[in-house]
């Protein structure tokens, strides 16, 4: 059975069928890309997986567990982390604090111990910090550790958001347009990070992406979406050569 499955999921906003009967599955350890024009419903699929929206139909299964109706804050604990298209960092906190918040789903210390900051709380903090430092080393964020997010350039913020997601120790990582707003070199670096995340950390990745060079470089399979419907699904060359996909990108109604 597949690692992650979306079975005929659908959601409507008013009259718009943002996601319409979409079915796909993702194998453990692969990079799965979702492409499509603006408004195709890519981000909405992520929002359905993170349980920000409830699907009007269909089923989501992760690692053998039905997650269709689970509470949104429990998703991270199951091992699904995400980044956002427009960066949703905690802007008035430092990089270190942001990354530590990524550890939240692993905190087990009782609230009384936290209030009194008992030795158990102190030990847990140190342990979290060590995990965070691993991510800082992995993404080479050392010199930004104490910087406030609001003072960081956009490209660094993207890496920090990726780092925050990694701090949750995810099994499945959802990346929403990891290259948007980045220049050519930064995009290339982002591609390397994604490959390392797949190869070194063994994390399964679903990414929404516009930059076809990045998609071809890192993804194993691609799903093309338009008006909430699946146009094509296959390897990057297959999907890029698909006549439906070409028509959707060049314009005109399908």
């Amino acid at each position, binding site marked *: 059975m597949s690692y992650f499955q979306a079975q005929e999921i659908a959601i409507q906003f008013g009259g718009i069928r943002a996601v319409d009967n979409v079915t796909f599955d993702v194998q453990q350890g692969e990079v799965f890309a979702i492409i499509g024009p603006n408004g195709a419903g890519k981000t909405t699929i992520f929002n359905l997986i993170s349980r920000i929206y409830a699907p009007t139909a269909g089923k989501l299964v992760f690692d053998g567990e039905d997650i269709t109706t689970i509470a949104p804050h429990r998703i991270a604990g199951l091992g699904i982390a995400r980044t956002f298209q427009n960066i949703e*960092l*905690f802007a008035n906190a430092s990089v270190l604090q942001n990354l530590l918040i990524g550890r*939240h789903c692993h905190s087990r210390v009782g609230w009384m111990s*936290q209030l009194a900051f008992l030795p158990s709380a102190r030990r847990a903090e140190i342990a979290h910090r*060590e995990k965070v430092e691993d991510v800082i080393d992995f993404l080479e964020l050392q010199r930004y550790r104490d910087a406030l997010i609001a003072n960081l350039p956009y490209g660094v913020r993207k890496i920090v958001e990726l780092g925050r997601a990694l701090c949750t120790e995810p099994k499945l990582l959802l990346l929403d347009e990891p290259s948007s*707003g980045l220049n050519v070199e930064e995009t290339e670096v982002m591609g390397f990070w994604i490959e390392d995340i797949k190869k070194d950390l063994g994390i399964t990745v679903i990414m929404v992406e516009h930059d076809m060079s990045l998609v071809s470089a890192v993804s194993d399979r691609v799903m093309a979406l338009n008006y909430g419907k699946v146009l094509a699904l296959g390897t990057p060359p297959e999907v890029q050569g698909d006549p439906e996909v070409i028509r959707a990108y060049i314009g005109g109604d399908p």
Partner: protein
Amino acid sequence: MRYLFKTRYEQDIALARHSGDVFWYGLLLIVLLFIPGVLGEFYVGELGGLFIFAIVGVALMILTGYTGLVSLGHAAFLGIGAYTNAVLLAHGVPFLVSLTCAGLLTAIAGVAIGVPTLRMTGFYLAIATLAFGAILANVFQKWTAVTGGFDGFAVPTPSIFGLRIEGATGIYYVSLAVLIFVMWLTFNILRSPMGRAMVAIRDSEISAQSMGINLALYKTISFAISAGMTGLAGALFAHYVRFLAPDAFDILLSIQFLTIVFVGGLGSIRGAILGAAFVRLLPQAIAIVRDDLPFGIGRMPGLEPSLFGLILVLVILFEPGGINGRWLKLKQWFQEVPLHRAVSFRRQKSYARSERLR
């Protein structure tokens, strides 16, 4: 300039960042302990009042400065704490017990207002908490069997282990102890997952949730802790005023509390203390200059509340960092002079690329 070399992770979770901090805050504490022996009754009493307001400032800072939830109901929380303490004392309950009960009962009241308003933010939350305050002000007035209504309630003199806490000096020491306790709790919260969850909710609810933070739970916790601490302050406030009248806990007091956190500087405990000092000193300053003001401005009714409102607006517009932000800039200037650059101290507007792309 002081450079800090960190060699252990413990240094980032320690309460004092370096030996300089330990020295200055230790010195401050010693001075505070000796003040009642030196200053007159009036000043000691005023400082006691400042400590009580500082407790509320820290409490409201947790809710507004760190969790991003506005409250105009904190005067009511103060009232619940004050009446709980006074009524229990009158029934012969020992002070330490009645103080604890005041904190706990007010924390429960915090949950009672926090849960129904879970989905509200900003303006709507302000109105909801305002309504809550108005309802409670009515309860304080009408529930005469317990509160004495407009006849007032004479607060019994408390004692701890047989030691009567009398006069300005007694309130001064107890308030100082409670303030230190509340600050210790707050610093613990801020260096724990709980405090980080609050900051996360303040800055982005959607990503807080996707990091595994239960929004409803932590907003409720924040309300409960903030209200509970305000309840402790209320208990002390009862002794500070000695005679409880229901109209003491009105919207103007809530606005003063909000002024503490905004003028002090959002997201800073030091700011809460500085803000409390400001709010306590402003009426004194008005009293001093009152008679010298031209055109009879000094005798205008409502001068004090309007001034509070005006200052609140001016600070939000021109110095969002509050007194604390100003203090940080001054400190930086002293450390860097003569190498400082004027531009570091000008207000900067930075546009993130994501904002421009929208």
